[in-house]
């Protein structure tokens, strides 16, 4: 299902200090830097520059900016972003989701309602970095948080866990964060040392009860 983008960022040149924080957090890498023109107000040599077609209204730049140098403006004509599942390599998508441990219809990005199958299809179709996945699907352009680890995990399962960060010193993502599921053995149990480490947590019950859930 596509996301309707109703707002995009707009740089306020006189407030921009060229600190590059906005560039470092944008999930779709819609912001770069350019030299400040002589007629533009402001002091820094460089200022932020937006590629509006790549701005999906995540507002991460607004959140990180300490200088009030980014405003969100409403679009006269909103546009939709999202992945066309039609034509995707279905077997490859199934295999990737299976390897990652996600059902294809499992909701990964709650903000944009993007499913694991849609993200897997985008990866199979050539989106091999988190920002490419976001540009293709719209996922990770809301809270930029909830879906982060599953996207990194799907990319890693597809062999793209070591994608270079973009920009090089950016921190829109680092790497997969450890999970409990990654320690589950083929027989569905956890190693004894993990059970002993967290005795207060109902680990056995958790796995048993989770298995009782069945998807529609």
């Amino acid at each position: 299902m596509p996301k309707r983008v109703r707002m995009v960022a707009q740089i306020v040149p006189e407030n921009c200090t060229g600190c590059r924080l906005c560039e470092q957090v944008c999930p779709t890498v819609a912001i770069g830097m350019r030299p400040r023109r002589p007629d533009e107000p402001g002091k820094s040599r460089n200022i932020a520059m937006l590629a509006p077609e790549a701005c999906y209204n995540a507002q991460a730049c607004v959140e990180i900016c300490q200088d009030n140098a980014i405003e969100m403006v409403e679009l006269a004509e909103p546009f939709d972003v999202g992945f066309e599942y039609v034509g995707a390599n279905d077997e490859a998508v199934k295999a990737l989701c299976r390897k990652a441990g996600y059902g294809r219809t499992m909701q990964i990005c709650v903000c944009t309602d993007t499913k694991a199958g849609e993200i897997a299809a985008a990866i199979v179709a050539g989106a091999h970095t988190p920002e490419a996945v976001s540009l293709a699907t719209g996922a990770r352009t809301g809270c930029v948080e909830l879906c982060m680890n599953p996207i990194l995990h799907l990319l890693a399962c597809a062999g793209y866990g070591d994608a270079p960060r973009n920009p090089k010193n950016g921190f829109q993502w680092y790497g997969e964060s450890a999970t409990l599921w990654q320690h589950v053995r083929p027989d569905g149990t956890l190693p004894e040392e993990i059970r002993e480490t967290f005795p207060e947590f109902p680990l056995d019950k958790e796995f048993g009860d989770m298995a009782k859930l069945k998807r529609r």
Partner: protein
Amino acid sequence: MATAATPFLDDLRPPAFHETWHKHRPAEVVKRRAADLPGMTALPVRALMPGLPGTIWSEDPLLGPTSLDEVRRQAKARAQAMDWTKIEQGRTVNLLANPHGFQLCGMAYVTMLEVIADHVRETRGAKVRLRIAESMGHIENPDWVKIYGLRERFGDVEECPQMGAGTKVDTKLGDMYVTRKLFDAPYFIHTHVTEMREGYLHRMLDRLMKPFGMAYARLETRSAYHFGFGPRTGQIVSRCIFESDFIQQRYVGTMVLDTTSEGVASVEADNDLKALDRRLAAGIMRNYGMAMKILGEIEDCVVVFDDHGCGVYCYAGGIAFDNMLCADVDFMDLDNLSLLAAERHDSAEPGLTMGKNAAIRGIVINYMAGGVPQPFLWDNYPIHVVGETVNKWMLNDPTNWHFERAKARVWPTLEQAVATACREGGTKNVIVFDRTPGAFRVTRELGEHLLARAPELRRKVEDVYLPKWLRQRGLAA
């Protein structure tokens, strides 16, 4: 204080609106607060639970003392009793705060932070920096730094969003990531409030440790908390990070405001966070149990959002809306999975997961902040919005694109929105989440219904729920 003869507090007001980081000014947009609708009253939590501990600070004099003296006195006493010798003379200490403390405990939280900062400066000659762990950051929160003049009070203050630069931490389960700026000093001090927010996540397991797995963690790890663990084991993230060498090398101690629905009951502290958590856990469940469970006694109603906070994080009677949304399942009971997204699942065992609350017949948004996705509201309940401006704020929220599919009806006045929601929902009952402390803002009839249900429910909480919750966690009654 409320009396048995007249339990309702008609004069209790909701807190005022603030300007948000998005420069939204709800006070200029909202024409009428839901508290001012005809027939509304405030049902004190104390009327439902007379045994609620008294407060040392409340936001409203109708609930208890508003002077900060006792908060300051207790915070000083706790600070003096703690061991700060880990902090080498003259070094830098990050004092960690969170937006929920400011939101729920206001000046009491600020006072506690000031006492800690002063004590550490005086006794250790340390430089103390206030670092605020932003959760959903600027989108969700009013600008607490300005509202409480934190720069003037503390000097070096910085808000640290979860999307800021991170630090990789080696834990017992593998790599996890925390927000760098929170831990970029040789030492840090942890602070918290004990209120019952996100109980469906922390499940009262290591409750006071939760910020280490969420507020202090970066995006990847917060995501893993939600997607890489079960609904009763997410707090393992918090435990892993807290017990990591990286954190333990820097950790000095913890001070918290122990809260009830009415405000602050006491200031508590310990260098041993685990011991502090165990000491307070039973009281937290006892003090909030009745307020949580009474929401499950509502048979039909319209919910009005009328404050900061986003959906599940809007407050009434000192507890968050998530308690009402999930009132169909006892999420303090560790026998239940209690998945929040369970309405999207079929369960082989009814009661194992949380579903749609059938008692909610409609939702009215007078004002609500954005920043947290709430499709489980838009997809499950009729939505009414008051005014085009608030509707536009909702539509433009980057995390709630799906608000559009709610096909919310926009009304020029609150009265029209509530009247329509009630008529179409077949109910006369209204409950308002407007952050009024100590009382549920409800229609009189609903208040009387809840009062009538209270004695039996109170017995059930005391005799059935609470003993089970405590037993499951190995806590003494």
